[in-house]
């Protein structure tokens, strides 16, 4: 009987260890990536700048190098960590509530809403600023509005008789996403001038993103994460199906709604600042599940760290792989990395289940 307790402790230690390692990896990666770029800045100087900004906070004499490290690189790195972890967590949640391994943050149409909002803003050539966080331009706000409206539409279409059923939710999501994709095409066909910017925006990029983008995403990210963590235990029960969840005393419809809102807030805000970055939300939960099983609390934590790491390094690749300061959209990098990797994962999973 002591053997059982031992296993429990070992299991617990292992998941804490895994989370710890990935967390440390995030910090180390953030520092290393800050030293990496077209402008040659030593690691020592990078570290000094970061320590100075984080721990003393005093605005001393800024050198070009410290501005590059703090304002340009580090803000972008923090943003990539936030978006990567957010998309991975949202993907985990969507796969859980829809009980569909192919679901990701973009299945449900929220990102299409954001893309549509952004397209409209680009189409009308809005360049004005919003009083809050001036300097961001209107596109992220239009995208966020679009995301929230799409979420509202999905919930309205997906709930029948006050119940949010899984099948109806999937269908509503697909319908909304398809319809919005058509609208985006319409906008593009109406104005050839804006096609390039719309396409580029939708491809997903972190180029030129600043602390203001971090500020825009942070409240949504924090509230979304808090909601998801609050209902993470319910996510396990929900994965057993509607009937069992109800028999265990859970209001499945209500829980599903909360999780949907939480995950959509994160997705919407992410897409609003970075465009559509695919594969992170699809691949990362699968990868982590393969390593440590389907229990959602550890799954969410590890997915967040791995997702952050993945996007951070994808973005480093995106900004350094082309010569002369040209950049790839990071969405292209994640898709190029994620596609083959997902095939491999699928192959392994199928081999395992056919055994």
């Amino acid at each position, binding site marked *: 009987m002591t053997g059982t307790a031992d296993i*429990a402790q070992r299991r617990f230690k292992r998941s804490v260890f895994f989370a710890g390692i990935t967390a440390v990896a995030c910090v180390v990666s953030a520092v290393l990536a800050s030293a990496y770029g077209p402008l040659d800045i030593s690691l020592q100087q990078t570290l000094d700048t970061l320590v100075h900004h984080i721990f003393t906070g005093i605005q001393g004499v800024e050198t070009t190098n410290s501005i590059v490290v703090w304002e340009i690189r580090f803000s972008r790195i923090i943003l990539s960590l936030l978006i990567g972890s957010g998309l991975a967590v949202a993907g985990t949640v969507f796969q859980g509530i829809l009980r569909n391994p192919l679901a990701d943050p973009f299945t449900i149409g929220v990102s299409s809403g954001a893309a549509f909002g952004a397209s409209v803003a680009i189409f009308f050539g809005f360049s004005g600023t919003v009083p809050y966080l001036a300097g961001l331009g209107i596109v992220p706000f239009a995208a966020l509005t679009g995301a929230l409206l799409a979420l509202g539409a999905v919930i309205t279409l997906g709930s029948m008789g006050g119940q949010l059923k899984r099948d109806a939710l999937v269908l509503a999501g697909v319908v909304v996403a398809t319809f919005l994709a058509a609208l985006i095409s319409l906008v593009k066909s109406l104005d050839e001038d804006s096609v390039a910017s719309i396409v580029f925006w939708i491809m997903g990029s972190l180029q030129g993103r600043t602390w203001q983008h971090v500020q825009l995403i942070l409240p949504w990210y924090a509230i979304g994460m808090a909601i998801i963590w609050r209902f993470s235990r319910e996510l396990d029960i929900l994965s057993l199906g509607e009937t069992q969840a109800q028999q265990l005393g859970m209001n499945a419809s209500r829980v599903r709604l909360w999780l949907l809102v939480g995950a959509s807030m994160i997705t919407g805000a992410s897409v609003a600042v970075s465009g559509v970055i695919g594969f992170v939300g699809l691949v990362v939960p699968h990868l982590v599940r393969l390593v440590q099983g389907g229990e959602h609390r550890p799954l969410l934590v590890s997915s967040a760290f791995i997702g952050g790491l993945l996007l951070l390094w994808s973005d480093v690749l995106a900004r350094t792989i082309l010569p002369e300061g040209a950049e790839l959209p990071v969405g292209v990098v994640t898709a190029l990395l994620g596609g083959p990797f997902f095939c491999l994962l699928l192959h392994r999973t199928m081999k395992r289940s056919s055994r």
Partner: protein
Amino acid sequence: MSARIAIENLSAGYGKTPVLHNVSLSISKGEMVGLLGPNGSGKTTLLMSLSGVRKPLEGSVSLNGTNLLQIPPKKRAAQVASVPQYTGETPDIEALSLVLMGRYPYISALGGYSDHDKKIALSCMQETATYDFAYRSARDLSGGEFQRVLIARALAQQAKTILLDEATSGLDIARTIEIFDLLKQRHNNGTTVVAAIHDINLAALYCTRLVFLKQGHVILDGTVDDVFTDENLTTIYDTPIHTFKHPVTHAPQAFFTPGSAAAFNRHSTGE
């Protein structure tokens, strides 16, 4: 004895099509009821209605005098526990975590499972002989082991009523007997058990009352000795059936003759 579960004129089903028609039953505290009947007779629908998952199209189900729909979900789950049918689909979740879900009705919105909950879960796992693989993923368990984990989960709910939907269908004879002995023991301590059972002899061995469903109607309802007869069984299952006394417990047991179903059908349609 007062009725613990009162089913009045219940019609229930999927969408607008009723599977159960106008069923009325009253189940008292401490009964062990076997739900019997051919496939598609409405056993699962009836159990789903009793657990509050399937809302009645007409009529009502009440628990200790309160309409089931008016009881908040967590309170309901603290009074009625369900063991689902084995579907072959197992989650990649530790067995102990699955059993702990049985404590969900008792935890507060922000608090987690306490040490007390964990202790109850582990003791239920000991009762169902699942303790040794408490920390194994359910995906790595056999069908029988997994069903025992689900039964442990239902026990952890500490409900006064336990519903089982052919919960032992994936288990071998020894495990089946073990589980039913366990249920019998719970029943002796005052728990009401309602179980859909495919094996009519198993039902006759353990239950205090048998309810036969056919095409959504209750066609027979009574004590084992009253209803478990040659004529009744032969009519319900469209197959000649003979009953004899069990050599040890003297409960009636049914016997079938190979090849008789087809002959009986020809005979009864007048060919």
